[in-house]
């Protein structure tokens, strides 16, 4: 990408620069002449990039007026909305822009999963993207706390409390993140610095994401793609036009929300100043973090020896799909059935009778919840090695397609359970969602690798 021969540009100034720094050549080759398959959809990556820029630029303007202090933060945001010239504009673009950036990222990732965009040789493109998602989660969470409203302040308390689940360093980490025992100026300062600085790390990762994609697109990957069309078209104008149309459509939806329903995506509880003495009835993050919050709440049980043994049995049942060893249906069914019974025994025993189940925890409930949260990202990182089906395009795989619908339903179930009060039916819904989420990655995908048509065996 860098060591290329410069093109011969007619404009003498462009040519002079390009001979010393081939930026124009690189741009021309990758965004104008680049031969691209016709079926590529250049819409969502463009939408994600533009939303990222909208949020970063509006954030820079907001940062000029914001005051990270417990006595002034809430008023500072109110002043931006009322008194700062065009302050209402940058405020609504930033607050609603975050929602639409996450919406675009989720669609972008979903399409990547559906069309197998993470498969060899593009594993790193996917992995860097998942890292970006993780950083975006931390950035949006710190941003939620900065206006110092009720839900934001209390969310900081609840989430940093989950940090204490990390063995050995947890309690120290919580103190370091909060800057003390409670949420205050020290917390706001820390969150402000994180919220301001980490987006630039995201920009760097986005650059690596695109760079890796450019390197890998030119390589033969040996996959069979049922819809593949060998004919190529230059990037400009074919994909630039298609992408611009998608972008305009998305921005129209964004404009309708940001200018006509500016409070639609902002939690009402965050429009009231933080009060450390009165815990609100409902503590929940913004909609795009609800599945993660739902997972934290769904895994509300510790790992006792029965549950631990059942997990080992599940792993044994799935082993042939990972090692490509011989598969015997009876043995796998026996192991999985035994594991399910054992899990039910361990879980019900723990919820119905405290002793002897409750005292025998290998992992406490709090740690298990935090581990499940981390596991959500871990399985996403491992996706290129979990879905190894040789057919790249998921739409050519009916079972995979049905599984994707199930997976989306699991995310919705987790989100709904995160939004609702932590009472029995909603927690149970979240637990079903959590089970399907992990089963999809760790069990269904490896099984489909072996049995879905078009596979190796």
């Amino acid at each position, binding site marked *: 990408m860098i060591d290329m021969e410069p093109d011969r540009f007619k404009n003498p100034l462009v040519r002079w620069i390009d001979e010393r720094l081939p930026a124009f050549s690189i741009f021309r080759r990758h965004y104008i002449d680049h031969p691209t398959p016709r079926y590529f959809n250049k819409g969502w990556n463009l939408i994600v990039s533009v939303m990222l820029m909208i949020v970063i630029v509006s954030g820079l303007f907001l940062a000029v007026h914001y005051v990270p202090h417990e006595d002034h933060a809430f008023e500072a945001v109110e002043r931006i909305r009322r008194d700062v010239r065009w302050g209402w504009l940058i405020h609504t673009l930033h607050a609603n822009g975050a929602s639409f950036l996450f919406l675009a990222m989720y669609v972008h990732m979903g399409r990547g999963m559906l069309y197998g965009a993470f498969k060899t040789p593009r594993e790193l493109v996917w992995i860097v993207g998942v890292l970006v998602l993780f950083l975006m989660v931390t950035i949006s969470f710190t941003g939620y706390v900065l206006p110092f409203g009720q839900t934001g302040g209390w969310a900081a308390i609840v989430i940093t409390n989950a940090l204490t689940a990390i063995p050995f360093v947890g309690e120290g980490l919580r103190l370091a993140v909060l800057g003390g025992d409670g949420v205050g100026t020290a917390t706001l300062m820390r969150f402000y610095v994180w919220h301001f600085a980490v987006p630039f790390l995201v920009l760097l990762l986005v650059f690596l994401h695109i760079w890796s994609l450019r390197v890998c697109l030119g390589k033969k990957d040996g996959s069979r793609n049922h819809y593949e069309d060998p004919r190529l078209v230059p990037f400009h104008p074919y994909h630039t036009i298609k992408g611009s149309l998608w972008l305009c459509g998305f921005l*129209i939806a964004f404009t309708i929300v940001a200018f*006509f329903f500016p409070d639609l995506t902002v939690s009402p509880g965050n429009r009231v100043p933080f009060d450390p003495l009165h815990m609100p009835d409902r503590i929940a993050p913004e909609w795009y973090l609800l599945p993660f919050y739902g997972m934290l709440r769904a895994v509300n049980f510790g790992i006792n020896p029965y549950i631990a043994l059942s997990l080992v049995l599940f792993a044994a049942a799935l082993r042939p799909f990972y090692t490509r060893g011989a598969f015997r249906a009876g043995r796998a069914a026996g192991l999985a059935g035994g594991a399910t019974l054992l899990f039910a025994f361990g879980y019900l025993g723990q919820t119905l009778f405290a002793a002897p189940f409750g005292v025998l925890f290998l992992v406490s409930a709090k740690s298990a919840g935090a581990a499940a949260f981390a596991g959500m990202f871990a399985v996403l990182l491992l996706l290129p090695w979990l879905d190894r089906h040789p057919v790249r395009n998921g739409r050519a795989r009916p079972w995979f397609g049905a599984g994707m619908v199930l997976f989306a339903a699991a995310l919705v179930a987790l989100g709904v359970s995160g939004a609702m009060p932590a009472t029995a039916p909603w927690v149970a819904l979240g637990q079903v969602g959590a089970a399907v989420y992990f089963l999809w990655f760790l069990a269904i995908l490896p099984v489909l690798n072996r049995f879905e048509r078009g596979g190796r065996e």
Partner: protein
Amino acid sequence: MRRGVLFALWVAFSLPAACAHAGAAPSWSFEGPFGVFERSALQRGFRLYVRECSDCAALSGLRYGDLESLGFNADEIALIARELEDIPAAEAATLSVRPVPGPKAGRLPDSLGRIFRTRGSDAVFETITEMSDFESADAADVTAFVVWSEDPHLEARKKTGLAILFYLLMTMTVIAVLGRRFQTLSEQ
């Protein structure tokens, strides 16, 4: 596709109105994509509010200078400032408005502005009619004033939004028309 976008626009704008329950609250002039405040209602609402409200928390962000966008001119603002708090005209523009408790105030809660921010304009209207001695028409004007004081850029926001929507639709049309040439080429 364009028809689809227009349909989506229509649905987006008409849904909230269709979902609104038929309660006692009047229909607000400031609702909808073209909604604006009625200046006369705001001015009446302001006068009622500053004379009758028992608490002033919602107005902590409001200065006498802001009353200009309610349609009052400088002389009227000076008069209001003198009438309410005996403030000299020269200083009025930078000072916060401090309403005084009045006989109709009843048991109005701390902050009507906060009720608007968390529960919307109908909730403000219901609170005023239930907890004070305001008549329905007066309560509607006070509600309009409270909404304005919490969302003073509502009109500018909608105007800007409509301009951006117009620009995006134009751009989309131009790209679609110009791009049609290349679309047919790529399908050959």
